Structures are given as C-alpha cells and as structure tokens.
C-alpha cells in the first residue's frame, strides 16, 4: 500500500479502498460496499454526534463508492454540514461531494448557497476559492441566480488575492456559458479588460479566457482588449527564453497565454489602429522567424510548446486573410512540417494548410506541395493523417491539377478505410464535376467510382451523372458507349446497372449503329443483370425496356414477351407489377406517334446546387459547410489557375487568340437599352433580344457554377433612389460606406470577403464572374439581437452607369430576401450583373464590381505578345504609372494578385525574369477590350513600373489606377 501522504490521511478510508481493490470478484466488491454503506448509515443515524473528522471520512467513503459507479442516496446533509466547518480539509471534502453529486433538492440548495455565500464573504482566500470552484464545477442556474451579481465584484475588487481573481474569472465564465442572461454587463467589463495588464500572469491567463467568451456576444464592449492583448503578446514573444521565470515552459515563454491571446484576437478583424496593427504584424513575424531558429532544447515539450504558438499564429494570419506576405510565409513553414518526422506535426500541417488553400493569396503556394500530400495519402500509417491529406487535396484542387488529384484519390479509394470511403467518393464526384473540361473524363471518373467503391456511391452521386449526361448532348454518345462496355464485366455493381439502364434507355440509339452494340445486344446485356437486382433497380430497368420499344421497334416483341411473363405481370411487388401491366398495355394500344411522345427523351434538368455537395456538407456537419464553401472558389479564378482552355461549348465566345485585342471591329453596340424604367432594362438583359445569342450563362457555366437556369424568371428590379442601404429602425447607422474606396480596393484582386461592417450590420460578399456576366451573393448579417424591419437593400447606378453595367437584385423564388431579418440571423441575396460596356465607377452600395472582374485570361506566346504590344502603340492606348511599393515585394504574392486581378500570367515573355507580363480580354456585352500588362518591380528602389495597353483609352487608365493600388 502506498504511503498516504502525510498528516491528513484518513486511515479508515485507505483501509476501505484497499479492501475494495483486494476483492476478487464483483460480488465480493458489492458485498464489501453494502457492508460499508450500512455502517455509514448507522453512524449517520446514531444518537452520538459525529465529530468533523468522522463526518469527513464517511462522506469521502460515500464519494468513493459513487465514483465506483454505485448510486448514493444519503449523506448529502452531512456533506452540507461539512461546508460550514472551519477546517480546510473538512470543507474541501464537503465541497467535493457537492460538486460531484449535485442534487437539486431545493432545501439543500438553499443551505449550500448559504454556505457558499459565507465563504465568499469570508475574506479567506482559500475558502473563497473553494466556494468559487464549487460554483464553477456545478454551474447550475440556481447558483447563477444566487451569485452572478457577486462574482464580478470579487473579480475586480482591488483587494482580492490573485488566486481568487483567477478562480472568479473562470467561475464567471462558467455561469455566463450556462445562463448568459444572468450575467449582466456593467461597469465591471472595462475593468475586466484591464486585467490583461495584470502583473500576475495567472490572472491574465484566466482573464483572457473570460474575455474571449464574453466578447463573442458583445464585441464592441470589449473592443479595447485588442490593443491590450497585442501589447501583452508583444512583450511575451519578444522576451528571452528565461525572462518569464515561472511561466517559461521548456525555454518557451508563456506558451498557453500566447495561444490564448492569439485566439482572443481571432474574435476581431485586424486592428484598425495602424500602430497596433504594426506591432501585431511584428509579433506574427517574430513567431515565424523563431520557427526557423535552432531549437533551444531537444525535448519534444519544447518544440510542442513553440509550435502550439506557431499554429495559433498561422490561424490568426488565415483569419485576417489580408497579409499576403504572411500567408505565403505560413504556407512555406507548414510545407516544412509536411515532411517532419513527428506525426503530430504532419497532421497539423495538413489540417492548417487546408484552410490556407482557400485563401486567394496562398492557394498557389499550397499547390506546390501537391506531391508531398499525395505521398502522405499513400504512405501515412495513421488513418486520420491520411484523411487530412485527402481533405487538403480536395481543398487545393483547381482546374490545373484536377486530373492528377482525382486519379490519386481514385487510386487511394481502392485501399481506403471503410470509414472514409463514402466521403472520398463524394469528394471525387464533386471535383470531377466541377473541373471537368472534357465530359468524357467526368463520365469515366464516375463509372470508375462505381467500379471501385460501388457500395459507397450514394444516390446523389449517380443521380448527378445522369443529370449531367442528360443536359449535355456532346457527351451522351460517349456515355452510352462507356456504360455499355462497363456492363460487360461479369460482376458489375448494381449502381452500374442503374446508371447503365438509364443511359441506354435514353441514349442507347446513339450506339445502336455498331453491330456489337445493336439493340438486341443492348437489351440482352441489361436483361442478363435483371434477376440479380433489387426491386428498385428492376423497376428502373422496366422503364428502360419500354423506352427501348420506342427507340428500337425491332425489340418490341422480345420486350413484350418479358413484360408478359408471369414473373412480371403477377409480381408480388406492387410497383413492379404495375409497371409491367401498364407498360405492356401502353406498348400494345398506343400508336407509334403517341408512344414517341410519351417516351420522349428526358428534358434537361434544371440546374441547382449539386445534391452531392449538399450531402457532403451534411456529412461534415454545419461547421464544415462554410469551410467547404470557402473551398469552392469561384470558377473564374479557377480558370485563371488552370490557364487557358476556353470552355468547350461557349459557342458565342470567339476563341481568345482569334480576337484577342478586339482589333477587328467589335460589333456595334446593340443600341443601348432604351433608358426606360429599370424594370424594362432588366427584362432586356435576361430575356435578351434574340440577336444576342451570348446572353445568360451557357449550359456549361451554369453547370460549372451550379447556378439557376440560364434565364432567371423575372429578377426583381430594385433600382431606386439613393437611400441608405438598410434601414434598421430608429438607430442611425451613419453614412453607409465609410472609406468606400478603400473597401473597393480590397476587392480588386479577390472576389470574396466582408464588404461592410458596423455595429448593426455585416455585409459579406461572394462573387463570380465569367465573360461579361457576373453573379454576386450578398449576405446581410444582423449583428444585433433585435429584428430588422422593412429591410430592403438597394443598388444605385450613378450617372449613366446604367448604360454601362446592369445589375439587378434578383432572388430565386425560393430564396427571397425576407423583409425582416431576425437578430443574429443572416439573409442572402443574389445579384446578377452584366457588363454592357466598359465602365469606371462602380455601382453604389459600393459593390466591388470593377471592370477587371470581367477579365478573361489569355495565354499567348512571346512572339504574339510583342506583335500585339506593338499594335497598341498609340500614345492614348497606353497608361503607365511608377509608384512606390506599399507592401513587401514578394514575387509569389505579386503573382497571386495579378491572377486575382484576372489576367493570365505569361512566362518566358519578358526577357527580364523579374518582370511580370499578363494578357486578357475584358468581356462586355457590346465589345471586347484586349488588355496587355507589364509590371516591372525594382527591389532596390522599392518601386514598381506598371504599364497597361488596351484598345480603349479610359480602360487603360482605369485598370492602371486600380492595379497600382494593390502593390
């Protein structure tokens, strides 16, 4: 038996515990416990008053019995008695019993609260802490009601001991989490924030947790914490490894406090005050620098503590998503960890990189690690690490690497753990669809999925392939041929039979010319699978058969024979029986014409959000949904990443190289839509005069972006007077957009982010542009707790902008923006935009719609570039600016920005490799403007020279202005 430490041990308890441990069987243990319970009960009931020590000992035994998993239904009163003891050890056992075995007996609660009240008032820090710990561990509403008002006072009282403050802070946190309504904010909040300055680091550690929790619901009340947190953090990260003495952990100064401070800062946007922001950026840089220094100890504790801070720093950098330089550095650091020998670090690096992949600034940098990540997917021993690798591949996927990633994921699927197969299947299906340039590749990929992991291919996946094949006539023949071949495998998955049955029923005629897949061969192939299939599949096949009768009259007799068979006509399953009877009758009574009408090819499916994506979101839970959304960056930037291929079926788009600079006279602008009422205008755009075949997204785009069908039904026109964007009621929100220009600048090179934010309202924006069309999603978040009434966002086109750009607030009928926005809720609105001509001023409500959004990147060889450059040599076609760098000059970041701007980046064109050269076409409805650009950085002078040449003078100047502000 181990020595129970020193004086206060309870011998009786130790004996009892070792008796229990010596019990050979469960029965013996229960017997021993029952004996003890009887003993304790008699002691408690006896006439002799027990002394404090005995009470403590018996209560402690009861607690032990409870922890072994037995019910305890007495002893509460004795425990409560212990609370009023003056001896610490007795009081401690009393509180422990109460906090572990809470009982809502109201009489007891009153006594307990009374004892707590006395201890809180005792001025004895040990007793105060015991009482506070009890409240913090129980955290019940009753206790909240009794003490929520007292604890803030204790927390900020000048004479409270440090340890009491620590406990009070966290006690308050627990009460706030349990019942926020009971903890009213008051004048104490400002003083709580100032605890961040406390000399005692333990107090700061506890206070940061409290503030982090409180500020989430009341960001403005705690806003002052930002600068205090930054200066505290700065002092810690710049201190030497031993400066903080007690708070240094394996040569790392205050790692937990640093992590907590960095998390607190993630509750807010980047600091507005330039000095604070500068200091913070310095801290972040220091942390990144320290990661490169040699370790001060070989112990894993040292590197873990250091890296805990590093990962939290990276989280903050990602949260801000505004410092390209730091984002790229973070990515490089994580890249080193991908090959580290510690599994923990590899895992965390994969996880963290996944969020970096969705930032437009670091996406390219993340992509450079693709081979390492693929290798991780193949070789990591821990399935959770492999899963992170798969997540990262999904996040870094774009058109440039989709084929490689999809084929690696397919290969992984063959040996993947069962637990994650379905998720991998969904991911592959989504990537294949999203980045398909060539739809035969898409069809092959999905059929491979069914072949490799048929059991995990859910309905959503195979429904989707059918929708896509139905909607795209260029792939139907290929799909029919491929499923026909796939069905010839001796054992093929039932999902293959379903897909095959459906596709052949619709498009089997496209391969019927080949004698190897003549109608009778197709039929007998399908029918050979029939008997092994489930009812649902057989029902589907019966529909295929009746479609065959229409497609191939020569199979009519055979198929009628099958339908007429007893096994069909009298099938026990009602559905099968009904289909057989109805189809048989239909085929016998209907004329060929009627048959052809009834069994006509399916019409195209309306485009909508991919059901697969919805399913993946569901699988990942609500938290992950946004991450997935972030992962799907808009198609236009994918195009950029992927380079050139013009989308195949955009018939109306002249091939980029053919008319790069729009030198051939652009068709004269269709008479600018009569500047009639706004409603008309919009109708014009969307219903489109027949003369403008390029109106509306082509099926290709609609498909890729999973948008609504090409012509949204009468989008609601809300062009109106320049009223404030939102009228949330009595409170004045002030000028709608402060520093609108600055906001706009933020969006020149990116498409998603927060557009506007004040105390009441946050407007987020997500947008995608393709050729001269754009779609913008606006998210209006009500940050208050009250409802917004009569909420009605408005877009205003200053001056003659209407003749240059059209935007309409249109809502798909199902997603109409409610006139009321509940407190804390968010509503979404869709804005359709068409660029009619080039334009300079963006629409009011300051939507980040700038002319460069309508860029189509264009790849070309050096020779072509120079030829075109020369053709644009008129002085007014060129705009040039020489300016000082406002940001660190990093080539990777510059590249990301230029790509974000919309042009293609051309390698090996400029003889000086430091320079950047780009080309693209601005697509408007009326004309196309070819643009060439050249950016010459001069690192020594910290200057840039930017030259734009376009076929339209104002466009050159405007693009030059827009872009120059970004570096």
């Amino acid at each position, binding site marked *: 038996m181990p020595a129970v430490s*020193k004086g206060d041990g309870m011998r009786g308890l130790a004996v009892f515990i070792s008796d229990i441990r010596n019990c050979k069987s469960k029965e013996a243990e229960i017997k021993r416990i029952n004996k003890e319970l009887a003993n304790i009960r008699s002691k408690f009931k006896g006439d002799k008053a027990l002394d404090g020590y005995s009470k403590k000992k018996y209560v402690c035994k009861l607690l032990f019995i409870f922890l072994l998993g037995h019910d305890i239904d007495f002893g509460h009163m004795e425990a409560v008695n212990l609370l009023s003891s003056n001896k610490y050890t007795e009081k401690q056992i009393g509180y*422990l019993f109460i906090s572990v075995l809470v009982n809502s007996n109201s009489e007891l609660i009153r006594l307990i609260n009374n004892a707590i009240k006395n201890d809180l008032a005792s001025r004895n820090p040990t007793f105060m802490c015991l009482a506070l710990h009890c409240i913090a561990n129980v955290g019940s509403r009753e206790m909240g009601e009794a003490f929520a008002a007292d604890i803030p006072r204790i927390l900020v009282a000048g004479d409270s001991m440090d340890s009491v403050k*620590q406990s009070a802070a966290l006690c308050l946190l*627990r009460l706030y989490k349990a019942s926020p309504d009971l903890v009213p904010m008051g004048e104490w909040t400002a003083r709580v924030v100032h605890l961040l300055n406390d000399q005692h680091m333990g107090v700061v550690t506890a206070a940061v947790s409290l503030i982090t929790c409180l500020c989430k619901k009341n960001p403005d009340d705690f806003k002052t914490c930002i600068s205090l947190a930054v200066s505290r953090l700065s002092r810690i990260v710049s201190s030497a490894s031993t400066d903080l003495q007690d708070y240094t952990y394996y040569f790392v100064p205050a790692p*937990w406090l640093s992590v907590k401070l960095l998390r607190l800062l993630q509750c807010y946007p980047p600091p507005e005050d330039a000095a604070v922001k500068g200091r913070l950026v310095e801290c972040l840089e220091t942390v990144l620098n320290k990661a490169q220094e040699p370790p001060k100890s070989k112990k894993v504790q040292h590197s873990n503590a250091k890296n805990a801070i590093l*990962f939290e720093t990276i989280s903050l950098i990602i949260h801000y998503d505004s410092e390209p330089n730091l984002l790229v550095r973070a990515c490089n650091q994580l890249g080193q960890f991908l090959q580290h020998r510690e599994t*923990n670090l590899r*895992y965390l690096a994969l996880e963290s990189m996944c969020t970096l992949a969705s930032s437009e600034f670091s996406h390219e940098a993340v992509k450079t690690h693709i081979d390492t990540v693929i290798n991780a997917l193949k070789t990591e021993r*821990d399935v959770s690490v492999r899963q992170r690798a798969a997540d990262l591949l999904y996040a870094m996927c774009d058109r440039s690497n989709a084929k490689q990633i999809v084929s690696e994921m397919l290969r992984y699927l063959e040996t993947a753990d069962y637990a994650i197969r379905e998720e991998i299947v969904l991911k592959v299906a989504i990537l294949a669809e999203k980045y398909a340039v060539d739809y035969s590749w898409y069809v092959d990929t999905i059929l491979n999925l069914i072949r490799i992991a048929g059991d995990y291919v859910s309905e959503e996946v195979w429904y989707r392939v059918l929708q896509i094949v139905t909607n795209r006539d260029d792939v139907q023949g290929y799909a029919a041929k491929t499923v026909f071949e796939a069905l010839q495998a001796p054992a093929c998955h039932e999902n293959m039979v379903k897909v095959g049955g459906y596709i052949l029923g619709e498009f089997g005629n496209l391969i019927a010319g080949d004698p190897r897949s003549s109608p009778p061969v197709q039929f007998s192939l399908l029918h050979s699978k029939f008997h092994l299939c489930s009812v649902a599949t057989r029902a589907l096949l019966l529909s295929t058969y009746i479609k065959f009768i229409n497609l191939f009259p020569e199979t009519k007799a055979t198929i009628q024979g099958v339908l007429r068979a007893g096994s069909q006509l009298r099938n026990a399953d009602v559905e099968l029986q009904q289909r057989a009877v109805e189809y048989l009758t239909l085929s016998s009574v209907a004329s060929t014409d009627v048959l052809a009408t009834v069994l006509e090819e399916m019409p195209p499916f309306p485009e909508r959000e991919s059901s697969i994506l919805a399913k993946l979101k569901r699988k990942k839970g609500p938290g992950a949904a946004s991450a997935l959304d972030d992962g799907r960056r808009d198609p236009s930037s994918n195009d950029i990443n992927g380079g050139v291929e013009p989308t195949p079926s955009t018939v109306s788009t002249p091939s980029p190289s053919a008319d790069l600079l729009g030198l051939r006279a652009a068709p004269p602008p269709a008479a600018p839509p009569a500047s009639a009422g706004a409603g008309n205008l919009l109708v014009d755009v969307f219903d489109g005069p027949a003369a403008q075949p390029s109106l509306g997204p082509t099926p290709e785009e609609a498909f890729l972006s999973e948008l609504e069908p090409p012509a949204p039904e009468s989008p609601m026109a809300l062009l109106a007077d320049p009223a404030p964007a939102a009228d949330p009621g009595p409170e004045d929100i002030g000028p709608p957009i402060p520093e609108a220009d600055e906001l706009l600048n933020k969006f020149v090179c990116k498409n998603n982010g927060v557009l506007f934010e004040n105390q009441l309202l946050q407007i987020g924006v997500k947008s995608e542009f393709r050729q001269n069309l754009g779609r913008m999603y606006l998210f209006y978040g009500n940050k208050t707790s009250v409802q917004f009434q009569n909420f009605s966002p408005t877009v205003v086109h200053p001056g003659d902008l209407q003749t240059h750009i059209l935007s309409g607030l249109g809502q798909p009928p199902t997603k109409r923006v409610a006139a009321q926005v509940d407190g804390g809720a968010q509503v979404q609105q869709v804005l359709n935009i068409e660029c009619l001509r080039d334009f300079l001023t963006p629409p009011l409500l300051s939507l980040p719609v700038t002319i460069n959004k309508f860029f189509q990147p264009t790849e070309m060889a050096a020779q072509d570039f120079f030829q075109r450059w020369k053709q644009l040599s008129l002085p007014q076609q060129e705009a040039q600016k020489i300016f000082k760098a406002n940001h660190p000059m990093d080539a990777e970041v510059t590249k990301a920005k230029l790509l974000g701007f919309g042009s293609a980046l051309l390698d090996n064109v400029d003889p000086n490799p430091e320079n950047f050269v780009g080309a693209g076409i601005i697509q408007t409805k009326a004309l196309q403007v070819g643009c060439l650009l050249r950016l010459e950085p001069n690192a020594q002078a910290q200057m840039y020279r930017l030259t734009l040449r376009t076929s339209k003078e104002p466009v050159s100047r405007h693009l030059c202005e827009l872009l120059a502000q970004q570096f």
Partner: protein
Amino acid sequence: IRFILIQNRWYMQFDDDEKQKLIEEVHAVVTVRDAKHTNFVEFRNFKIIYRRYAGLYFCICVDVNDNNLAYLEAIHNFVLNEYFHNVCELDLVFNFYKVYTVVDEMFLAGEIRETSQTKVLKQLLMLQSLE
C-alpha cells in the same frame, strides 16, 4: 475543454449513463492507437487529445478548433508527478480527493487556470499544511 478523464471532471452537462458511455467510447478509440499515431483523435463533434504515461492514459476532450499542441502540453504540465513524486495509478486511487484539488488548481470551468508549476505546487503545499 469539455471533459478531462484522469480523475474525471466534466465541464459539460451529461447524465451519468452518458458519462459512462463516453468513458467507454474514449477508451475504445484511444487504446487501439500506437506510438506512431498522432496524439489527437476526432471524437463525436469534438476531439480527444491524449498522452500515455506507462499504462495510464490522460485524455482531454476539446472543441475541434482548439489548439492541439497547447492541450497536449497542458497534460504534460499537469503537476501530479511532481506532487506525488513519481505518480503511479495507486497514488491516484488512494488520493482521489486530492487529485480533484490539483485539477481545479490548473483547470477550471473548462479553461486553463494556471500554468506555472511552481505556483501550483506552492499553493498545494500550502493547502496540505492546513488542517
């Protein structure tokens, strides 16, 4: 922190049956892992950060976006070893009521309360000297 499994402390409301179930599930997911695995496991909507000392597993359940390494080292920073001088399972069983005190000194309301081993040990010795 949602809960700590050493001397079990729960910072979220669960009923007793649920607690028992959680303990068994955590045990099942953690004990099958070996040294080559990470010290983190996804668990329901949370994650478990654990550290193994000989036959003893110390497990903390936290939110998915909490800092893994910070909690991994918080387990190591836990002063049981120093307090009991080379702690073993028996120390924890016989002194279970003291272990609660140690937990509450370092973690409270699901947050890290104090990280200085020196400060915590000083406080524990002070409490030990009280009657």
